[in-house]
């Protein structure tokens, strides 16, 4: 077979891969067909890789094989991480994706250096800048999520001006390169400046903003792959990158809406400044209860809604919560979980943790669907969530979280809040929910408190 005929077969394989990519995303739409979606994606990827290995342009296979083995050696353990480590794993995979796109862009620049035109230079510069900043930005995000770096926002005076100047410098270098593509010494400087900007972009961002940031980095990683497709004239990369990029973008928009904030607001750390201006909460009396009392109230309820937040993940309480769900369900109580879009550290974080603990997914209810249910709810049990249930977001116009959509927990007949202490949440604001007459504070570690309740309920069940 001549090279031209082979090329046609390869192109055909890529088209099949692209169709399978689209089907993969379509099937991922619902938990019933999702596994088929993963399979479609796997077939597409295998097909594209095998086709590429038959490309007649390849002259040496040694380094390809070594790199594939190393890649598999890194990828398999990263696929086996604990479900609780998924947010940092995801951030790390954005870093790898962006690194890959940046490396190829850099290689293309040096290989084509003698004959690059301005248009090609512009494409390469854009691609390499986005790839590089996404690489370091995602590494910082992964470091924060793994708690190798502090989760709190790291801010200093004039930060935004400094950061934007660094980005401006990278863009100016790119423009200079477009004017003189052969000024090769500028290229590595541009890469380094973009890498630095990635670090500066993510360090000021705090833990609770991670769902938005991780989605934005997802989108950047996708768009850098699509731009690489433009550089290499490869439609399969353009499609995959556009799909990934739009997915990350939609998720970022959903996360921003769920916090009632804009992209610029998240990226330029308004929370950092808000935090200091909030006055210290004055001590007000609260009602507290023991596991025994909590168990009694839950046992008498007909409808219970559990509201999990990041604190549940930290305390690893999801398995105990499932036990609580099971025992209450067995006693005829209607138990569901209310999931706020930004609860946790990445989109869908709570759902995955609870699914791993074997909570049936039809018990995991989205914010808009559960909110009308709260007035008919006998007990709302809040566990490790704070700002997402703070009524101030709805009723206090000057609150830093004013306008943020919340779970209407305050409408429930009885509210129980499991919390370590009265410390305010991420936004640093006091929560009026805790001081309501119908609210009981359950002070203690979430996991041990829930197991205390479960123990009591089991004793009641055995006695009756």
């Amino acid at each position, binding site marked *: 077979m001549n090279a031209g005929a082979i090329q046609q077969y390869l192109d055909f394989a890529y088209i099949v*891969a692209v169709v399978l990519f689209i089907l993969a*995303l379509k099937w*991922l*739409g619902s938990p019933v067909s*999702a596994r088929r979606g*993963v399979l479609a*994606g796997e077939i*597409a*990827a295998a097909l594209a*890789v095998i086709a*590429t*290995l038959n*490309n007649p*342009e*390849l*002259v040496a296979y040694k*380094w*390809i094989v*070594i*790199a*594939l083995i190393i*890649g*598999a*050696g*890194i*990828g398999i353990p990263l*696929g086996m991480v604990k*479900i609780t480590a998924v947010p940092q*794993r995801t951030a790390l*995979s954005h870093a790898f*994706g962006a*690194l*890959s*796109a940046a*490396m*190829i862009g*850099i290689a293309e620049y040096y*290989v084509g250096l003698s004959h690059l035109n301005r*248009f090609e230079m512009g494409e390469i510069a854009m691609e390499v800048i986005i790839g590089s900043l996404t690489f370091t930005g995602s590494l910082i995000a992964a470091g924060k999520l793994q708690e190798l770096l502090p989760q709190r926002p790291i801010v200093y005076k004039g930060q935004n001006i400094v950061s934007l100047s660094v980005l401006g410098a990278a863009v100016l270098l790119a423009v200079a390169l477009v004017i003189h593509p052969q000024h090769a010494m500028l290229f590595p400087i541009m890469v380094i400046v973009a890498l630095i900007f990635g670090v500066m972009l993510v360090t000021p961002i705090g833990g609770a903003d991670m769902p938005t940031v991780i*989605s934005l980095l*997802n989108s950047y*990683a996708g768009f850098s792959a699509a731009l*690489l497709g*433009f550089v290499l*004239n*490869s*439609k399969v*990369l*353009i499609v995959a990158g*556009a*799909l*990934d990029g*739009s997915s990350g973008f*939609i998720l970022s928009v959903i996360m921003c809406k769920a916090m009632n904030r804009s992209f610029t607001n998240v990226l330029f750390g308004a929370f950092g400044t808000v935090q200091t201006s909030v006055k210290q909460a004055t001590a007000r009396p609260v009602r507290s209860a023991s596991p025994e009392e909590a168990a009694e109230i839950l046992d008498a309820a007909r409808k219970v809604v559990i509201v999990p937040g990041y604190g549940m993940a930290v305390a690893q309480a999801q398995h105990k919560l499932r036990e609580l769900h099971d025992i209450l369900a067995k006693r005829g109580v209607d138990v569901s979980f209310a999931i706020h*879009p930004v609860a946790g550290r990445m989109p*869908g*974080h709570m*759902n995955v943790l609870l699914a*791993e603990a074997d909570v049936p997914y039809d*018990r995991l209810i989205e914010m808009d669907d559960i909110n009308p249910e709260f007035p008919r709810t006998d007990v709302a049990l809040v566990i490790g969530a704070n700002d997402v249930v703070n009524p101030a977001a709805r009723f206090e116009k000057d609150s830093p979280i004013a306008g943020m959509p919340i779970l209407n927990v305050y409408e429930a007949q009885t509210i129980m809040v499991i919390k370590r202490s009265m410390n305010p949440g991420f936004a640093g604001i006091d929560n009026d929910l805790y001081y309501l007459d119908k609210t009981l504070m359950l002070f203690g570690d979430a996991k041990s408190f829930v197991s205390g309740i479960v123990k009591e309920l089991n004793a009641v069940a055995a006695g009756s």
Partner: protein
Amino acid sequence: MPADFISNLYVFILAGFVGFELIKRVSPLLHTPLMSLTNALDAIVVVAAIIITGRHETPLSTTLGAIAVAASFSNMVGGFFITDRMIRMFKSGRAKKS
């Protein structure tokens, strides 16, 4: 503007719209697996990395290409693997009882 650019732009815009329509329909239940699956699909950059590495044009391009192959292939393998693991955890209440 090169002709290739225009046809690439067509593909990009259409794929963006398709992605937008499909992803809007993904249940929020599955947003975490969605992110890991799109990541694995995005790892298709590995095909470009393989070509750069295998053309063996300069030591630099081979080295950068090999790093790119390793990075993107790890995403491909790990991404599909973890997505499948997560999706298998989602069981409906009805399936559990039967």
